[in-house]
């Protein structure tokens, strides 16, 4: 038993699941399968699916603070909320499009930076470096820490009057004459990005590190013997071999970043400055600050549809034959 038990844990992670012929003894007890996934499915239904359907229903009603007490009787207003949300001339609609665009830019920048930092660290820390174990753990700290802790530290550092950043820029280095604002105004987008990268990049690092470990070492030896340059090795060897991980990582992180709520909330409070308003905080503002739930739900539903379509598109593009062992 020990022999077999040890093998999977030690060996380089097994490649794609073996395509096995189904054996009768495994197929029997299909009912058991349903029983096993029942708790998970029930939990999903209760917490994810049903509330989402309810949220969709709310999107078609006028639900505000006045009638929230009897929300089951909220008046049905059809597509009004959607129209108000999408009308580019309306106050909400105009914010929606810019926010959507801004969130897209945010995702691209943060995802790109996280991936770059992650892959660089993964590659460099895959080889035998002094302090490798320490650095691996150290680099994961920002992600392991509760998100608000790091974000609060950034807010503290970027405070206009007393913060560390301005102290360095103005007092110590004399690069600027006046203390710029970071948490309001144009610079707020920059701060949001920095704080997000700091907090999220270790996740990319972690996944890519794991992926790197699955690349057998002799592949590189062969490549170097062939005279391939470092960059060439990276592009033609590493990238293709970690492609499955990359695909998953980019999708999961991308979706998460698009829905990002907690970092802006901790950095800016309930009202993000306009230049840094991402789409989730915008919806939150309309739902919970202005207590216009109908509108908030409608826009959330639209967001969901957009993300769903984008994901399908992405999956088709990069994973033409996903789960071919179905």
């Amino acid at each position: 038993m020990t022999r077999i038990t040890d093998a999977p844990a030690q060996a380089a992670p097994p490649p794609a699941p073996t395509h096995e012929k189904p054996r009768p003894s495994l197929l029997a007890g299909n009912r058991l399968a349903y029983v096993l996934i029942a708790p998970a499915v029930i939990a999903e239904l209760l917490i994810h699916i049903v509330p989402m359907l309810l949220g969709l229903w709310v999107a078609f009603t006028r639900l505000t603070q006045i009638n929230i007490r009897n929300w089951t009787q909220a008046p049905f207003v059809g597509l009004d909320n959607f129209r108000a949300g999408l009308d580019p001339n309306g106050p909400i609609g105009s914010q929606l499009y810019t926010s959507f665009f801004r969130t897209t830019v945010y995702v691209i920048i943060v995802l790109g930076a996280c991936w770059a930092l992650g892959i660089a660290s993964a590659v460099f820390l895959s080889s035998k470096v002094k302090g490798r174990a320490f650095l691996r753990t150290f680099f994961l700290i920002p992600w392991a820490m509760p998100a608000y802790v790091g974000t609060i530290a950034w807010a503290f550092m970027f405070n206009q009057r007393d913060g560390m950043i301005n102290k360095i820029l103005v007092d110590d280095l004399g690069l600027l004459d006046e203390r710029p604002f970071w948490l309001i105004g144009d610079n707020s987008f920059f701060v949001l990005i920095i704080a997000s990268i700091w907090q999220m990049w270790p996740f990319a690092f972690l996944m890519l590190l794991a992926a790197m470990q699955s690349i057998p070492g002799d592949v590189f030896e062969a490549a170097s013997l062939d005279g391939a340059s470092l960059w060439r090795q990276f592009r033609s060897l590493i990238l293709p071999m970690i492609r499955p991980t990359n695909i998953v990582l980019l999708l999961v992180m991308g979706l998460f970043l698009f829905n990002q709520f907690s970092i802006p909330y901790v950095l800016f409070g309930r009202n993000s400055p306009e230049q840094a308003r991402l789409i989730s905080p915008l919806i939150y503002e309309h739902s919970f600050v202005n207590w216009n739930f109908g509108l908030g739900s409608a826009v959330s539903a639209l967001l969901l549809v957009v993300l769903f379509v984008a994901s399908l598109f992405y999956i088709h593009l990069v994973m033409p034959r996903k789960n071919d062992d179905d």
Partner: protein
Amino acid sequence: MKKKIAVRIVVASTAVAALALSGCSGGDDSGDGGSLTYWATNMSPTIEQDEDVLKEHLAGFTEETGIEVEYEVVPWGDYYNKILTAVSSGEGPDVLNIGNTWSVTLQETGSFMPFDDDALEAIGGGDRFVETALESAGKPDETPTFVPLYSNVYSLFYKPSLFEAAGLTEPPKTYEQFLDYGRQLTLDTDGDGAIDQWGTSVPGASVQVSSHWAFILGQQEGADWFTDDGKPQVDSEGMVKAVHTYVNQINSIAAPSDAEITEGAGAVQDFIDGKSAMIIVQSPMAQFAQFDFTDWEVAEVPVLEGGENIQSMVAGINIGVFSETDQKDDSLELVKYLTSDEEQVGLNSQFSTLPVVTAAYDDPSLEEADPTIPVREVILSEHSKPFPLFSATGQAETLLGTAVVTLIGQAAVSGSVSEADVSAALADVQSQLEAAG
């Protein structure tokens, strides 16, 4: 067969755990048996101080009536949400404080017990209350669902020593004078090239304070937030002028960094720390005492020249009873106790607020405890108006406050804000209010 047993065990233990955990909520909010649940607003600089004051006074209540009270002091930031959560779920406290500007909005939710004649009798009669305070408790022609608990108004605080040094003999009477003095007192006191003392401090990131000034200055310009039948009109010329005046304090007489101050207390702290010469605020005296700060005097709030002499809105706290409570009589007892003449003197002196019952003002110990009473009483009874008494007020407060905060941010970053900018921002708020219906 082992599988079946395993499944049964799992299901059973899950059920047990679920029931146990749902019970482990620390008790549900509406209290059990004889104890009342009371949500209090944050009156002092710290929550701890509030708790000390309440503990003392509520112990007196329990002694007198035998009713236990479980109180919770809630920070302002989340309080409105917390109340609306209680309203939407039907699970809330028995008795609660509210910011009085929320009175009408909350009245309309139907979740609070009306104070009809019987109820008013039960707490000692409605004519004991200061008229302007009582006015702010609900819609003019309807039975109120709240009664006043503490009152407050804005007043001007200034540093006599700095005034003397600048050759100013009296506090400013008009707003224009206020701006002028402010400019005179905005100085670089240590000669390092940077301004370190400003005319005033404002909590530029506080949505609530900003909304108050959108109201007060608007009133001085003769601009109401709503028409008589409740339609919003927040983008009128008067409102634009009012907001424009307020916002442009930043960078002229208030430090740009004020745009990052989220609480009134933060601005007061700057005043105490010597970063400004004047401040218009509600009741900073407890904070002054905490930091042994004595170089201050109180005066009436400067008013726009030629404008209506409205110096403040009737700020304050109202108290009400949640309609879902099953301890109505006990709750009314608590309200009666807290609005009684003696308690009013005691509580208000400790919170630096103004009593809501006229009899309390006859008590000499009140003025002893708080020398600002004479000035502020005059402001309360003669120069203040209640916040608009419409159901959309809560929303308007949030939207206008946020718009002002955004404009302040703009002023801080770019130097100043034009009337066009203000106009655009207010037009935005107007359409959002209209859209919400």
